[in-house]
């Protein structure tokens, strides 16, 4: 193959892409759809349930303040602290619940694996940016809120190539 034919062939393989739809995900308008409601863990079978590892959700009516999530995070990110909460719960004698610093969290999900009471899961929420460092620290009350997410974009593959839609 001569040099000229090679260059023409290289240009041609690029020109073909004029007819192909753009693959780019237009992020703030489009958001990728994830499997399920986030990563969860079933302590009886010892296996997790597939899902996105985003911000955590804490169920106040199940958390016993046993510190296991905080112990699991020691040596990884040390992002979990256990402050006192205002409300009193029957199962939580010490009234302490996890507070997560997302400036430190690495989203590995091993705290979810450590929780034996189905109290700590992860959600599909990943937009956690804040102007201050304190804004990244989520208190137990903030963690209890179920996130409102609108994610519906998927990868579609057809004859004209792949695109997000």
């Amino acid at each position, binding site marked *: 193959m001569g040099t000229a034919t090679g260059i023409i062939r290289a240009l041609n393989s690029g020109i073909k892409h004029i007819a192909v739809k753009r693959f780019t995900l237009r992020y703030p308008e489009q958001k990728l759809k994830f499997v*399920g409601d*986030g990563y969860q863990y079933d302590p009886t079978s010892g296996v997790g349930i597939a899902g996105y590892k985003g911000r955590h959700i804490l169920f106040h009516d199940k958390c016993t303040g046993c510190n296991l999530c905080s112990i699991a995070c020691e040596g990884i990110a040390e992002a979990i602290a256990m402050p006192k909460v205002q409300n009193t719960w029957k199962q939580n004698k010490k009234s302490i619940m996890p507070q997560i610093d997302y400036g430190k969290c690495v989203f590995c999900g091993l705290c979810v694996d450590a929780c034996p009471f189905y109290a700590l899961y992860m959600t599909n929420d990943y937009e956690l940016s804040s102007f201050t460092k304190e804004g990244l620290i989520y208190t137990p009350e903030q963690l209890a809120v179920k996130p409102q997410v609108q994610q519906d974009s998927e990868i579609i593959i057809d004859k004209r190539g792949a695109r997000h839609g």
Partner: protein
Amino acid sequence: MSKQLTPKSSKKQSPESSKNLPPGLQLENVDDRIMTLNVGPQHPGSGHMRLIIKVDGDYIVNCDPDPGYVHRGEEKMAEYRNYITNIPHLERPVIHDSCNILYPYCLGIEELVGIEVPERAKYLRVIAAELNRCVYTQYWLAIYGIFLGHSTMFMWPAGDRELLIDLLEKMSGARVTHAYFVPGGIRNDVPANFEDVCLRQVNYFEKRIKEYAGIFYDNPILIARTKDTGVLSREDAIRLGTTGSVLRASGVDFDIRKKEPYDVYDELDVHSNVMKAGDSYARSKVPWLDMLESCNIIRQALEKMPKSGGVRTKLKPNPKGGDDEVYRRVESGRGSLGMHIVSDKKPQPYRLKISVGSFRNLIAMPYLLKGEKLGNMPAVYWSLNYWPVEADR
């Protein structure tokens, strides 16, 4: 500067001949003409590293790679953390290839603790590891494109990588740093319709990477820049201890997936790609051929995988090994990746030594760059499949 390293171009002028020249045109001594050039330590593509290059005009006389700018002390850190807590840390050196760097660790601890992995988990591990190898290679290829001034070759692999990242995110829940492998299997089973989605996206991915041949690998401009630059002969490749794609590009058929199969690689038909030339072109093409092979392996694994069953053998919260040591290695995106774990009946490893392909390929760099033109340096350097962060650990 030793005298033997005089480059091809500069014939040393004898004092007699320079005396005959008119004043003002006298040539200087060879040693005075050599200039030291620091390439780095700010790295355009990945982590920081520096190349101390001595040039005579346009030719490289000597090259001294200076790694260590991104040393994180992963091995020492591992001695203070227990076996499960080590998982998110150990994948940090290569976040794009995080499944493959955890693979030898998990295999080693399974041997130390003495647990068996369920059959389905073994296949899912192979699929995750092959997807991750492609993700890494695509990133590497994108940077190779931009090193050679080929912007399209930066955009295409970076975009097509998204197809596989999407699959890994469906499996593990994270786009990079999956923390998916654990001793005893994997963290979670795949979602319900994963097999269909995986097959569709891998098939499309394979079709896409075949298009790279026209624009990149058969492109006369790329061939002119990489062919016959930095030739590493078969004997030198073995003597210098290179591994992975660098070794296979020099004509040595060595792939750990084939030679020492781990997990279920012995049940799959693995073909290793070998090229004889040993130049930068061969070293840039072998990872691309490996990606095509990875697509084959993923399809085979999806077909042979048991459709149901457990994926994780339950471990005690703080698993302990005996008074024992173990060495396991796998084929990563950059070659052989081994971990030597010494246990002393404690929940933490007594010593964890990581042997990485990047560092072993870096050793070949001074030999390849000697006598090359400085303009060929990026083509030779990045073809070595070297990842600074992994080499420093």
